[in-house]
């Protein structure tokens, strides 16, 4: 486990330590490491000190294995895998346990409020951590899925910029579109 330590500096000048293997989960950091710019601390002016530990936590879990994060992103099903007749069931089971474990971990990991979600998304985007970005984006998408426009506005703090007339028309359209949405 002992690998080179890398120091990351958050936007508010706090320094965090991360293993090199873990840091490689981030494309941006990987490029910096491979580019040989490792003298001292890597400043991350876009990531604050409340988010960076969260990011590092993710990297630690996923450092080195981008494959599994991809699997998670696909809902635990690796679609590329071709199922051959001589398919190893044992291997499949182990894989399944591992995926389940990761899923559970991610569930716990993703338990935070909205502001953290956006900051995390920004950080993941900035640091190019695909798995984390997928995870956060999926969570944001799940906050929209199946909601009414009003709920979406509330969730994302969006002000409707339609004029009252336009809104009325839209409501009419929507009523026509599917009777009533109040279903439950």
């Amino acid at each position, binding site marked *: 486990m002992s690998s080179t330590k890398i120091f990351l500096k958050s936007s508010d000048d706090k320094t965090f330590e991360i293993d090199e293997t873990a840091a490689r989960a981030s494309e941006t950091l990987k490029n910096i490491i491979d580019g040989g710019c490792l003298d001292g601390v890597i400043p991350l002016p876009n990531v604050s000190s409340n988010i960076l530990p969260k990011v590092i936590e993710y990297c630690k879990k996923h450092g080195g294995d981008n494959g599994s994060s991809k699997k998670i992103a696909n809902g635990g099903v690796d679609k590329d895998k071709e199922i051959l007749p001589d398919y190893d069931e044992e291997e499949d089971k182990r894989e399944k346990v591992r995926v389940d474990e990761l899923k559970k971990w991610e569930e716990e990991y993703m338990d935070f409020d909205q502001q953290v979600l956006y900051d995390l998304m920004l950080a993941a985007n900035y640091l190019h951590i695909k798995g984390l970005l997928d995870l956060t984006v999926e969570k944001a998408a799940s906050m929209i899925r199946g909601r009414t426009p009003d709920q979406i506005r509330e969730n994302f703090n969006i002000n409707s910029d339609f004029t009252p007339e336009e809104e009325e028309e839209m409501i009419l359209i929507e009523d026509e579109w599917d009777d009533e949405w109040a*279903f439950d």
Partner: protein
Amino acid sequence: MTGRRRRNRLKLGGTCNKGKEKVKEDQSHTVSSNNAQVNQKNEEVAEGPHMNIGSYPQYFGCENSDSHYGFDYGSDSDFSYDDFTDPFRYDEGGNYRGDYSHRAEFSPYPFLCYHDEEEDEEEGKDDDYTFMVAIPQKDEDEQVERPMNVGVMSDLPLDVVYDILSRLPIKTLARCRSVCKDMCRITHIRRFIKMHHNRAIQGDIPPSLLLHARYCFDELRSDVYLLQHDTCDDTLDGRAVVSHPLFSPPKNEFEVVGSCNGLLCLSEPLYYGPRFVCNPITGEYIWLPKPDKRTNFDIVSGFGYDEVANEYKVVRMLFHSIDIGLGNGSPSFKLEGEVYSLSLGKWRDIGDVPYPLRGKASPAFVNGALHWMTESYDFLNVTDLIVSFDLGREEFRVVPPPPGFVPGRQSHRLNLGVLGGRLCLFEYSIIGHLEIWIMKKYGVKESWTKEYVVWQKSSGRDSGHFTPLRLMENGELLLLCNSECLVLYDPVMKIFRDIWIRGLPPCFEAITHAGSLFPLRNAVGLAKRDRFNFSFGEWCPVLFPIPAHKTMMYGDKQPSEHGSNPDVEDEEDFQIFQTPEMWDRFQREEGTSNANEIIEDFGALLNLFGKGMNTYGRESRGSSCFFELRLISTLEDRGIQQLGPTVGGKDIILSLTSLSIILI
């Protein structure tokens, strides 16, 4: 070119007359020809600066140097071009930006001017042109995309916002349009549509169901309903609602041929000959040309996508004779096949089909091939066969059946289907159960496994005919029962669960459909003459129309970096004619001649496409298409110095209303 007057009259309703000059259309829009045009263009720049050249030669491509873009407008108009920058290949400083050939996948078919050459021989006659407009390949990333005002998401990079929204099922996406203007705007951005489309066809978004109801409510009509479970998890339970207004084509009755990548192919109900292809979500459709041949048998058909050639193809096979030959020697039949490629725009013979295919529409499109059941006759033995038609190679093959599978024709009924992207064989036995075979690796006989057995008795129904529709993410099977309800079957516990869905039609067929905003025009291809054999139109879409006209006002103009035009007007000149009535009013106010002057100038149309068609009209809900006319200020909003003829200091922008919904 210079000094030549070319007057093109623009008529409402899709035709225009032209002057004496012969206008040619370009039929090749390859990247290379674009390059050639850029070069050609630059050469001509050297010759004479006062030329009428649009910013987007590839849209109006015409290799004939006499007429660059299939048409031209009078150079006596008081404007000229001093900028020949192709925004695709050159940045604002005129530097080559590299190969943008990947954009070709959007099929940027140009404004086409179709000209009947026979008519052209009569000199002096006002020749009619049918024209067709395709989406200009505008660099929409630059043009439309700007930071969104979407609440707390505003700070996120656009890519991330797109990523979030592209994961939404089509119904939720449709609702997002009424959240705020910027959200609505996103659903019109081509890059976003592409992202969403890709997710939808790759199955990342759970597909919705299209319910096709026939002959219900004492009416001879067919309707298509969209059923989309809308919840976060992949269950239909209790939440699904059949969306109310349906996709209602002008022709009231139809049958469904197949759904592929968000497009739906429909057939006429008598002989099941395929007649339309449509995107039921946007309501866009095209008619396929009527067949010349007639038959008294059901037409065997199919609809699919050839990934290699990026083409959508409709297959139609007509029986001319069937003699199954039982008892008196070998059977005989004659089945002629034809393929309609959407990009080619015409029916093409593929010769005789070697198998007497059974059924009307192909029930399974898997692995780039359509599949049908058929029989092979060996003396008196009849064996069921699975026959595939590869859309790329256009050849028929026999798909190996499950090993040891020799179904007796009397005791079983077979059908094909797709579950989880794999070919399935449904075997209905007389004792009332359904066995589902799945071919786990396409083409490999050994990979067939009998995955599910559905016992009708355990459903609690006296009689049940189950059609498997979908494999749910939790492993349950979604089945259509007796064409009247949907049930979920848990293969582990072997129990059925009824799904209660509001507004379900009394009798319907169901088909899975990857709902997408994919513009049908992108699938419809090149500038072949034959494409004019069919017409575009819009039906009432499954989802409510995109209220784009409200949101695409496009007010944030940026000053042109290419110099300014002296006739710059303020934004207040921005005017939209949404309806023919408004246009009529405008005509009255401005004087008919003046208004006609405006609309007649074909160059105005060019200008429109040069601007990337940033106009969105309300869909016209009818087949009649009228023009939407916009006056906008000459201030070029995206740094494109492409000024049209100025009439009263205003630029004219025209757009076809019927195209509006997909113009990005």
